[in-house]
């Protein structure tokens, strides 16, 4: 656990970068520092490994003041990843990754073997081990940065906008892979970003900083979206925070309706009887086929022969969130989202109104 106790930092030029910040970063969790540029996020991060010494207050790791340990020794036990990766251009990828093990006196052979192992772990081809950083893409360099931070297996990792310099597609991949890695490693991570989407995606808890180094809110992503502490936080989260909140409502909580779900050999009369504008046709295994508009259908015929609108995409009632359900509803020709189980069998459909009701119930808790 990392504890900030009333930490303030005033730089010699008078800039106040941190103003009486107190918070706890729980062991094994990702704590995200997010906020406007110049809000003191980087400064706060650096007080942990003593790259910045607070003007007042204390930073503790598992209860022990970081100032009681010599900086170099402290830092070798804390992984550090930064935006431009900060790789050593004159060292090969393997030697870059092995930097801290070398500092700790480990032999070349063992350190390099471990480097190759880590390369695979972070999704890099070990064949790149002998290359130099300039020969790698931005995304690959960032992966090397992560591998290097992990090399000495430190319990704590500090990450300062680690994925900000790569394009959005690569960023998405890096984020997802890092979360997968963290699920295995359970490091205590402080993760700085200026991107609220990234904060919500990565954070177990989020600390929002504003200019002047003030911590304005420290909460779970879900609570942050549900109850921003003030207008600054609400503005920072953005106008679509309502929709983002749907990410935290499991689709399993939606009440799905299966009255408008019919087998494809049902008759038009049966479709009319549902009272719905659209009916969803399914095959014999109750897997969805497509939508049929009920109005204007000729009588006496099987629905099988009626013109069908394509299905759009479905959501998984067990694994997806209500946000995926809303997306499915918006893209569906009928305006209804189709929920399926793990086998692709239709459970029922939901309207945007059903989704709104689900959020209502969620915030009432």
């Amino acid at each position, binding site marked *: 656990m990392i504890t900030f106790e009333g930490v303030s930092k005033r730089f010699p030029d008078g800039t106040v970068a941190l103003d009486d910040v107190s918070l706890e970063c729980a062991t094994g969790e990702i704590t995200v520092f997010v906020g406007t540029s110049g809000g003191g996020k980087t400064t706060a991060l650096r007080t942990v*490994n003593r*790259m910045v010494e607070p003007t007042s207050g204390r930073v503790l790791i598992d209860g022990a003041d970081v100032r009681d340990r010599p*900086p*170099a*020794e*402290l*830092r*070798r036990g*804390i992984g*550090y990843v*930064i*935006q*431009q*990766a*900060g*790789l*050593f*251009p*004159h*060292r*090969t990828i393997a030697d870059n990754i092995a*930097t*801290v093990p070398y*500092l700790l006196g480990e032999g070349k052979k063992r350190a390099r073997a471990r480097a190759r192992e880590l390369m695979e772990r972070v999704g890099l081809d070990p064949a790149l081990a002998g290359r*130099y*950083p*300039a*020969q790698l893409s931005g995304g690959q360099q960032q992966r090397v940065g992560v591998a*290097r931070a992990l090399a000495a297996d430190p319990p704590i990792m*500090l990450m300062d906008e680690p994925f900000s310099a790569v394009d959005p597609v690569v960023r998405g991949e890096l984020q997802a892979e890092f979360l997968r890695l963290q699920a295995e490693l359970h490091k205590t991570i402080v993760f700085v970003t200026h991107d609220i989407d990234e904060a919500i995606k990565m954070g177990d808890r989020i600390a929002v900083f504003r200019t002047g180094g003030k911590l304005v809110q420290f909460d779970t992503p879900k609570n942050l979206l549900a109850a921003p502490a003030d207008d600054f936080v609400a503005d920072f989260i953005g106008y679509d925070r309502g929709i983002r909140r749907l990410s935290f409502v499991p689709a399993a909580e939606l009440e799905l309706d299966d009255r408008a779900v019919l087998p494809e050999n049902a008759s038009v009369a049966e479709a009319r009887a549902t009272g719905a504008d659209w009916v969803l046709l399914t095959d014999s295994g109750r897997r969805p086929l497509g939508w049929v508009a009920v109005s204007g259908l000729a009588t006496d015929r099987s629905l099988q022969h009626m013109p069908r609108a394509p299905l759009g995409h479905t959501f998984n009632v067990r694994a997806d969130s209500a946000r995926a359900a809303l997306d499915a509803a918006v893209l569906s020709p009928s305006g209804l989202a189709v929920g399926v189980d793990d086998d692709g069998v239709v459970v029922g459909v939901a309207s945007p109104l059903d989704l709104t009701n689900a959020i209502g119930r969620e915030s009432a808790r």
Partner: protein
Amino acid sequence: MIAAPADDEPLIRWDWLARNADDIGGMLADHVYLSVVPVVIGLVIALPVGLACARWRWIYPPVLAVTSLLYALPAIALFVVLIAFTGLSHTTVMIPLALYTLSVLVPGVVDGLRAVPDHVRQAAVAMGFGPLRRLVQVELPIAVPVVMAGLRVATVSNISLVSVGALIGIGGLGELFTDGFNRDFPTPIIAGVVLTILLAVAADGLLILVQRLLTPWSRQ
């Protein structure tokens, strides 16, 4: 010391070159010595001075002013002044050349160290490098390409400047020029020019090779 020429000569008299090959070889060796030793001395002094300038930024402007001034001084003026102290010796020629080298290499070392990206330096600090280790294992190696560029300039310009020493009688291949001019005899002049150029090209090529070996990472 060199055999006398006859009148109405062709541009180059190969037999003269053959007869004086030993002397010319000696001048070549002298030339290499006179130009390389000052480069080494200049480098040995420029490293700590450059490091100090990079560490304490405020001393760099005055140091740069002094080295630029040194660079602007005509070599022959320096030779004449130095004769009073060091006489007609190799030292008299090598001191100005070492000063020229210094004036090229001090900015080279400073620029090289400044070329170390800030994020690389920060990363080194964050991983637990102490200041000395960071300098030796990270900053200096990354500065090598820029320092080597300065070293190449200094070496090539020293090789051409050594010849000026011939005006006071110590100039390696430059003595071929004074000899040729004194006797209105083109062969030694042409031999001197060609050998100087070849020497400069060879030295530069050697330094390029050394750089490739030292910095396999900087290509591409």
